[in-house]
């Protein structure tokens, strides 16, 4: 089972959960299972055409999936998958 690490900015859509596990053979399946389990995440992962957003990157181990097989990248058991979001700072004033 692959272990997906949820970054801090997206944890509000997972009820605070920092990880997500699913038994699925590819990155696409894992992300799909994540988005189904936490529907609020959907617009933060995919654009209107269903492509992964440009301001997040997905890694399997220490490698960008773009350098592997993209979302078709196969997941070995116990693989660590990370979603890396663009973050800019975060100390600005609330509204």
């Amino acid at each position, binding site marked *: 089972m692959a272990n997906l690490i949820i970054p*801090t900015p997206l944890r509000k859509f997972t009820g605070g959960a920092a990880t997500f596990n699913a038994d699925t053979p590819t990155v696409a399946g894992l992300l799909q299972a994540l988005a189904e389990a936490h529907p609020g995440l959907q617009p933060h992962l995919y654009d209107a055409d269903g492509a992964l957003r*440009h301001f997040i990157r997905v890694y399997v181990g220490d*490698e960008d999936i773009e350098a592997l097989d993209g979302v078709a990248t196969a997941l070995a058991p116990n693989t660590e998958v990370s979603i890396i979001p663009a973050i800019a*700072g975060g100390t600005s004033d609330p509204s």
Partner: protein
Amino acid sequence: MTPFSKAELERYSRHLILPEFNIEGQRKLKQGSVLVIGSGGLGSPLLLYLAAAGVGRIGVVDFDRVDDSNLQRQVLFTVGDVGTPKAEAAAARLRALNPHIEIEVHDVQFTRENARALVRQYDVVADGTDNFPTRYLVNDACVLEDKVNVYASIYRFEGQCSVFNAPLEGGERGPNYRDLFPSPPPPGLVPSCAEGGVLGVLPGILGSLQALEVIKVLSGVGEPLVGRLFLFDATTFTTRTLKIRKQPGNPLTGEHPTQTDLIHYEEFCGVGAPVAEAVVSREVTAKDLAQWQTEGKAHVVIDVREPYEYAIANLGGELVPLDTLSESLHRIPRDLPVVVHCRSGVRSARAIALLEAEHGYGNLHNLKGGILAWQASVDPELARY
């Protein structure tokens, strides 16, 4: 050869007796220059360590003034600096820390008009800014001027660090920020305004890592974080180091570059464009509301902020966080004037728009300027945040 004075030799002796660093490393630091953009949470430890370590010339870019709420993390500043320009206060502190180096003050906003000229004057740039437009501006200016960009960024409990656009063997340069994130999140998907906090020590950790990487780049000692992204999650104390690869589609450094100069970064990031902010038809000022209370006029106050904001300061209103409005309609009367407020008036305008459009309310008034306006014009004893 740059000679060192006796005072400098003694001051830097713990570098000089480090076999891998020694007087050669120190000499490179002294001959080196760094432009630090932002002297806030990241910039504070970064500047302190670079100055203490003896980097010969340090430029500080910041147009802001020191505020009380900065002191929780911006360790460059003291209570006595509140209200003074950050770049000036930073320079005074750094000159007191190390009189053997030059500190240059740039009390200006870093913009597309001055970015390239500022960057050009230094060997290395360290990005300690806090917003996407400036992140991309710093990146692009560094790429266009062939400068290394030592990057760190934080969000709440999480930090990132990398060294962008570093020269590689063979004359090429390493990946830059656009290889990692081709475009920023649109403003609507940026974490919401009620979540702007940060654990004060986190920028201290990431800013210190930035200082480490600047010192490695200048001295040539060690292997800088080139083509790699360091991640730190403070909540679980987890660290990861991932690979960053150059992307063929990078508009500056890809296979078919389309960008040869700086662009409009606010536009690129969708900031400053006319935001579809909610328009409210009924507004009350803080003074109006105070008068209603004095006159005993019947009304209800609804506070759409989060509980942790309510704990800092409140007007005694019903707490109904924006995200929970639709489930809490029974707490919002329809037969009395209702004043809705948040911190500054933006979220409450959104709340009113939602309640009017989807739930048919017609008795809602936005408190103009939110609790901040109330604090400023009615109750100065309330804490600002």
